[in-house]
């Protein structure tokens, strides 16, 4: 069966310096290939500067790659016209790390969740409100928060709101760019459960970008490790975690803070 998302040899250069001379470019992605089967989660692990966010932006068509291809459900995104792309965009959604900056703090919760409907010009006004409230239920945000401003919510609540907005148009793929990193541990657990529940009930596919191997380990079916614009290792989560082959993977695993069951092992990895 064909994967939902297939990226092949993706290259992205940014011009740094005065002209587009080859010497002055910043190579963010240096030939990245991966594929995600439908309904599964791929965790993309890497440090800052590895290119993970650039990859997310390219897949979401917010940046155009220098070369390489991105296929969604078999359709090459680069071959699409802007009009056709606009029809496809609702299928790929993004949830960012910092809900404070990706949600307008002065907008009400209801407005934020209804915004996708407005942009895509679907449904009548009363219909939008009903659907919006249903979305709030879906992410376990109490309805009484609907008229509050986003700036008044807690971190966890904001992230739920961001997820509600992301699933509004029934996407197939959600890219979560460090979506849990800024949250407290207990809140991370709540949101993680929510994501898993939504995945099984809505058949969502996740690209989970993080630098935290612990969460990646928990949520992912497959793990890909990125370093300096390349994928250095990719495979089923079990394999990567217990028998990593690449040095970068091993370093990252070792650096992940953890504590074992027995007190005698009170040391960092």
């Amino acid at each position, binding site marked *: 069966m064909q994967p939902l998302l297939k990226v092949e040899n993706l290259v992205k250069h940014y011009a740094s310096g005065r002209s587009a001379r080859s010497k002055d470019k910043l190579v963010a992605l240096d030939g990245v290939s991966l594929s995600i089967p439908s309904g599964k989660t791929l965790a993309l692990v890497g440090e800052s500067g590895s290119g993970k966010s650039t990859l997310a932006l390219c897949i979401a068509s917010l940046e155009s790659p220098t070369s390489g291809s991105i296929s969604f459900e078999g359709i090459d995104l680069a071959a699409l016209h802007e009009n056709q792309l606009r029809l496809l965009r609702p299928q790929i959604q993004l949830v960012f790390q910092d809900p404070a900056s990706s949600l307008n703090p002065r907008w009400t919760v209801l407005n934020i969740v209804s915004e996708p409907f407005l942009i895509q010009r679907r449904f009548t006004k009363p219909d939008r409100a009903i659907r919006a409230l249903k979305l709030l239920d879906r992410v376990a945000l109490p309805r009484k928060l609907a008229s509050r401003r986003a700036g008044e919510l807690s*971190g966890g609540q904001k992230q739920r709101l961001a997820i509600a907005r992301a699933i509004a148009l029934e996407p197939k793929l959600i890219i979560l760019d460090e979506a849990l990193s800024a949250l407290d541990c207990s809140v991370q657990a709540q949101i993680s459960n929510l994501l898993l529940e939504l995945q099984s009930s809505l058949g969502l596919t996740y690209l989970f970008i993080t630098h935290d191997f612990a969460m990646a380990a928990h949520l992912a079916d497959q793990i890909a490790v990125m370093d300096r614009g390349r994928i250095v290792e990719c495979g089923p989560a079990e394999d990567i975690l217990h028998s990593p082959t690449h040095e970068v993977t091993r370093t990252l695993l070792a650096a992940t803070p953890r504590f074992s069951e027995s007190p005698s092992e009170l040391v960092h990895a």
Partner: protein
Amino acid sequence: MTPLLEVTNLHVSYSARTGEVCHALAGVNFDLAPGEILGVLGESGSGKSTLAAAILRLLPSNGKFQKGSVLFEGKNLLEVSAQDLRKIRGGRIGLIAQEPSPSLHPTMQIGQQVSDVLAAHETLDGRTLREKTSHLLSSMFPEDAERISRSYPHELSGGQRQRVLIAQAIACRPSLVVADEPTASLDPTTQQEILQLFRTLQQKLGLAMILITHNPALLAGLADRILVLYAGRIAEIGPAAQVLYSPQHPYTAALLECLPSHFAGAQSARKATLHVIQGEPPDLTLQKNGCQFEPRCAERMEVCKRDEPSAAEVSELHEVSCFKFAG
């Protein structure tokens, strides 16, 4: 041995412009021995950042000390003169602020920012000041201290900025350093380096530390004792190993169970539902009777609704504020 720091019955509140009063800290008691690393474990709204600010009397203008004392080297920091306080800040107690990027002056060179701290506490001539600054920066940046000294904050990476903050905090050889979420915005490898650095500083300089974080895993292997903060009160305090591996307070236990246990060695199913703590942290503007954790506690009892538990000893040095253990 006399404790380095003694916090007794500390109450801090903030008043909002609407008139509401938020009780950020409601009766915090703990001691810190010289050279000890105390981990303060708390989530958002627990009062951890307030505690960090309160120790150095750095509350914002709407913050107020309602009750309590902070005894440092025998002096009550809440009562010392402004002049003495200035000498203590940076001189005897170092503070590593929460986020490295906004905590550095954007248009001043790093070298200048570090030497200003030195100059604020010691009268040194120009050359000695430069030497000391350079020495300090070399200890943090063994390879390119010179370049860093002439750089500006925006030219540095997150980890480098964090090191600058640490350099500033230890510049005058304080006996205590308070670090508020020192690794929050850092990559795992950088995080590890910084934590290692803390360990080294404790060993080499005999530095006592209060390390504030929301991630229990960071404290494993680093902290000597751990203090768990919830709703402005201490839920549990004890030796690190005990708190992490046999937590007594229901909140601590629940919090530790929230962590994805994959790395804990236990073979739990991946993608399983994680244990969560039901409900939300309490609204600290409301004065609630009884235990603050009670609405979310799996082991709550009738008495928990009415009265607030006081600290009870479960073993030597390990105290828990919970009616499960109250006499």
